[in-house]
């Protein structure tokens, strides 16, 4: 069984075959997957019947796991899964679909906006790995947009203008966009904005990309409305169809992506049906820019 990668769009995304992720991997297999990530930015593995423990073991091949604390309004005591598994489902602690007006559901609707995972953390995420445990048969796709291709396609004047811009990211902003502002003081403190460069350079390939996310609320030194209008224009450019790949889920798909090079979002589905997805996140290894004192 040899690991092979088949490219899915003219721009990016690869489908991997010839590897069983439930088993310990050889160093060569890990190296091949990492090289694939650097090149394709998102990799799809079908038919991987992972347990939470196996998913964590596989994910640790690529670095330390990010703890889920600080990324959601769900209290640790109300969580369905262990603290290193992000719960990307529509279920409550008792595995029942959330009510239409449940606060957690309102919060999680923010995933329908284009974003990069944990861009609201001072050290943003490296990889995300999402396992499809129970999938819906209509909607609920995950769409990806290639921020390297989007950067490359900008005109020279725009590239020069944005080169040194720094954005402020917070969950307050992405949720505010959807009119979800019902946050406690404690939650607001947890979601304090962090700063990220708008243009990042990939540590391995040296390629530049746009570090965009709906968590962005402003650009340092700009009036907020001007910053938001500009970021919207950039996000619209960056999510043009030719830069995107839409993943239609099958049960036991594992999709992993590089948050340093992509944005992603989920599309609408009938969430009275169960959709149970579980994410592990590989932590990034540094700041993109010095934080405000």
């Amino acid at each position, binding site marked *: 069984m040899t690991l092979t990668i088949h490219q899915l769009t003219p721009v990016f995304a690869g489908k991997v075959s010839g590897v069983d992720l439930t088993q310990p991997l050889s160093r060569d297999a890990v190296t091949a997957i990492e090289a694939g990530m650097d090149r394709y930015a998102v990799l799809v593995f079908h038919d991987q019947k992972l347990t939470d423990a196996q998913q964590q073991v596989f994910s640790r091949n690529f670095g330390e796991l990010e703890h889920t604390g600080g990324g959601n309004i769900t209290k640790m005591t109300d969580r369905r899964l262990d603290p290193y598994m992000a719960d990307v489902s529509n279920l409550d602690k008792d595995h029942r679909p959330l009510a239409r007006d449940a606060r957690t559901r309102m919060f999680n609707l923010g995933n329908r906006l284009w974003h990069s995972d944990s861009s609201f953390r001072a050290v943003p995420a490296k990889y995300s790995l999402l396992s499809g445990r129970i999938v819906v048969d209509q909607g609920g796709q995950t769409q990806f947009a290639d921020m390297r291709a989007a950067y490359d396609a900008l005109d020279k004047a725009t590239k020069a203008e944005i080169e040194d811009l720094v954005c402020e990211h917070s969950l307050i902003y992405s949720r505010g966009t959807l*009119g*979800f502002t019902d946050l406690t003081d404690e939650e607001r403190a947890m979601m304090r904005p962090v700063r990220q460069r708008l243009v990042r350079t990939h540590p391995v390939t040296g390629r530049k990309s746009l570090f965009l996310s709906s968590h962005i609320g402003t650009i340092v030194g700009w009036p907020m409305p001007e910053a938001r*209008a500009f970021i919207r224009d950039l996000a619209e450019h960056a999510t043009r169809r030719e830069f995107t790949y839409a993943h239609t889920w099958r049960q036991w798909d594992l999709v992993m992506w590089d948050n340093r090079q992509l944005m992603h979002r989920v599309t609408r589905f009938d969430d009275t049906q169960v959709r149970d997805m579980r994410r592990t996140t590989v932590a990034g290894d540094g700041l993109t820019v010095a934080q405000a004192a």
Partner: protein
Amino acid sequence: MTMAIQPLHAGFVGKVSGIDITRPLSRDEVASIEAGVDCYAVLVFHDQPLTDEQQCIFSQNFGELEVTLIGQLSKPEDRRLGDRLELGDISNLDARNQVRARDDEKRMYALANRLWHSDASFRAHGAGYTLLHARIVPSKGGNTEFADMRAAYDALDAATKAEIEDLVCEHSILFSREQIGFAVRDDGNADKLRPVRHRLVSIHPATGRKSLYLASHIGGIVGWPVPEARAFIRDLMEHATQPQFLYAHAWRTDDLVMWDNRTTMHRARRFDDLREVRDMRRTSIKGTGVAAVPVPVAAE
């Protein structure tokens, strides 16, 4: 000279030639223009050196003029175009004809014109036609883009059409400004900021065609949790503004573009507004637009 309309897309946007709109028009000419805008939703007239007075006279052929909200919200000494509240000042100039500073509050307010919208959808009667005339255009950028809400409606799948048929949205100028982080101050104008309700699917009174009545002024759908409504409206906006539904108008001085707010959305694109002047004057036709849905008292 005979008036002719040349379509720029199939059934969307017509370029009008053979007419001088600075002079009084015959009843036939007015009827032809109305038929044209019903059919094409956007009409472009080149080389029309209109004065403010002439623009108002031409616009009045199509109904009574609407006063602008920003005019109503501004102090008299801050109005560049004087007492004529029905003439919208779509420029980056202050009352002394100087380019507005980067953090000028009127500039912040106007930046929301870069979001897709339908004029005055935040009023009980949204605008019918809008007429925008270019006096000074920047050397780069500042296009106005239009989206055909009839074609966008037609392209929805049957399930979505059924789902949205009876939905009612809440529109307010507050919501569009909030999207870009600008809080409009109340200042005793609460009545003008209060959300109004419009059906999401509207039917054009002349053609009978259905269209999506969308605008960034929408903040909610009646009966829906707000975040769910906003996420859904964003999806619909994205659908409705796909390249195949769009026309980008690159302005020349003395262009007049006239559009039907009941069948289109539009937005302005970025330009170097701290260094270049863009001076456009807008008139809108009152009360012939989409009518608000009465708010049942019991539901409040």
